[in-house]
């Protein structure tokens, strides 16, 4: 085999082939740990809210201008994720504008609004409220997981009902196949310029934001290549029994939790980072609403963003209504009703305060391993499959 064939093979493996959910999950956890070490925990909703707040400011609902999206870390995380996923989609020639039939557009609006509500109550989507909450040793992550399971069950019931009563067709794709590689190279150039601009800026935060942009681009790239989907991991055990994605997600959370445990033990991040006053009601109820909605949307917080980056118009609609609803509801929850100070939706529970760092990790690891074993067993026994 010649050297150029090896080079071609490497390109094929990294940029064209799909990664397995296990590979995706391990790589995702690696970048998530690096991001928390470098700067801050990964999140989605904070950035969406920032974008929503700019719309609210534009129409006069908010009096004060929100932070600049390019200098607000939560927003930069989402920009990185979308750029990374877009580079993955275009270089693999999988990008194209997919316009769904009307029923899907209605579902996108309703699901987007409900995701905005659920993520406001839980102070995060299933990244900030579940994946990263568990990894940051917060009890709220477990509460949201329970809410998600019940919510997803309801969402699956809805999908099966819809299938019996409605049919929709007539969607189209506006293909960009011929220019996809060019789009990919332009996006890569924008990403590299962005990182360079942050690194060479005079601002104190420039270096941190540049690294965050790079790492979240890696996250977006890996998520798109592996089509990493937390909705799938909760939904398929009910719908088909299939558990490959669930095993990938479980492994990913376990590794991320291990890494961030060490980061917090070493004192690199404050212990209470990403431990929100949502235990138990905010996380549980928010998780339930978010779980049902994300099944109908066909993507969670992160899953919606990487699908936006491959041109799924349905998910673009989801993200718009998600961001707007979340920013409006959080305005009332934070500033008008002051629910967090009053503790109406629960308290902030940092598990090591009760069990020590070792005990907290063992508890979380046990829960994740039990989940892994459950979906794996269910794949063969199909005991909990309610699908077609």
């Amino acid at each position: 085999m010649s050297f150029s064939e090896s080079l071609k093979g490497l390109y094929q493996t990294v940029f064209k082939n799909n990664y397995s959910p296990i590979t995706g999950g391990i790589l995702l956890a690696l970048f998530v740990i690096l991001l928390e070490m470098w700067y801050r925990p990964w999140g989605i909703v904070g950035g969406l809210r920032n974008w929503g707040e700019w719309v609210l400011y534009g129409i006069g609902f908010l009096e004060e201008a929100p932070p600049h999206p390019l200098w607000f870390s939560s927003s930069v995380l989402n920009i990185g994720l979308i750029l990374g996923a877009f580079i993955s989609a275009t270089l693999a020639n999988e990008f194209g504008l997919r316009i769904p039939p009307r029923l899907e557009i209605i579902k996108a609006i309703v699901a987007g609004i409900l995701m905005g509500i659920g993520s406001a109550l839980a102070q995060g989507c299933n990244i900030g409220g579940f994946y990263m909450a568990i990894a940051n040793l917060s009890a709220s992550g477990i509460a949201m997981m329970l809410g998600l399971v019940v919510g997803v069950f309801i969402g699956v019931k809805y999908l099966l009902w819809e299938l019996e009563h409605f049919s929709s067709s007539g969607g189209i794709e506006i293909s960009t196949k011929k220019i996809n590689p060019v789009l990919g190279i332009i996006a890569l150039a924008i990403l590299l310029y962005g990182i360079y601009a942050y690194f060479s800026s005079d601002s104190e935060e420039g270096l941190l934001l540049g690294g965050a942009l790079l790492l979240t681009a890696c996250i977006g790239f890996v998520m798109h290549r592996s089509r990493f989907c937390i909705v799938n991991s909760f939904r398929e055990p009910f719908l088909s029994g299939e558990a490959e994605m669930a095993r990938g997600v479980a492994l990913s959370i376990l590794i991320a939790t291990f890494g961030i445990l060490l980061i917090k033990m070493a004192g690199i991040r404050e212990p209470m980072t990403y431990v929100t006053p949502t235990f138990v009601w905010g996380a549980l109820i928010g998780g339930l609403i978010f779980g049902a909605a994300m099944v109908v949307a066909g993507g969670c917080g992160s899953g919606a963003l990487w699908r936006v980056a491959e041109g799924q118009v349905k998910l673009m609609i989801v993200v718009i209504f998600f961001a707007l609803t979340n920013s409006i509801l959080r305005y009332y929850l934070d500033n008008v009703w002051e629910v967090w100070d009053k503790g109406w939706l629960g308290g902030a529970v940092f598990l090591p305060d009760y069990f020590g760092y070792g005990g907290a990790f063992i508890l979380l690891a046990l829960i994740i391993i039990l989940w892994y074993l459950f979906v794996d067993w269910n794949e063969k026994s199909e005991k909990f499959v309610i699908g077609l």
Partner: protein
Amino acid sequence: MVDLSTIKPDEVLDCKGLSCPMPMLKTKKALQKLGSGQILEVLSTDPGSKNDIPKMCEKEGYEFLGMIEETGYTRFFIKKK
């Protein structure tokens, strides 16, 4: 190997513009309605379908005949055994 371009499907399912999991669910439902030996053609624009449909066929015991890439969508051919 079957020549896909000459296949006359018994049923065509249009999943264009739909995103995960709708193409999968609709395909499964359409296959259940088919008689044995009949062929379903699915039109999908979701990149995930290229993995999901063959995998589902293997799991559920349908024969996946192959796919043809057109501009803007992919045609999948599935035979019910």
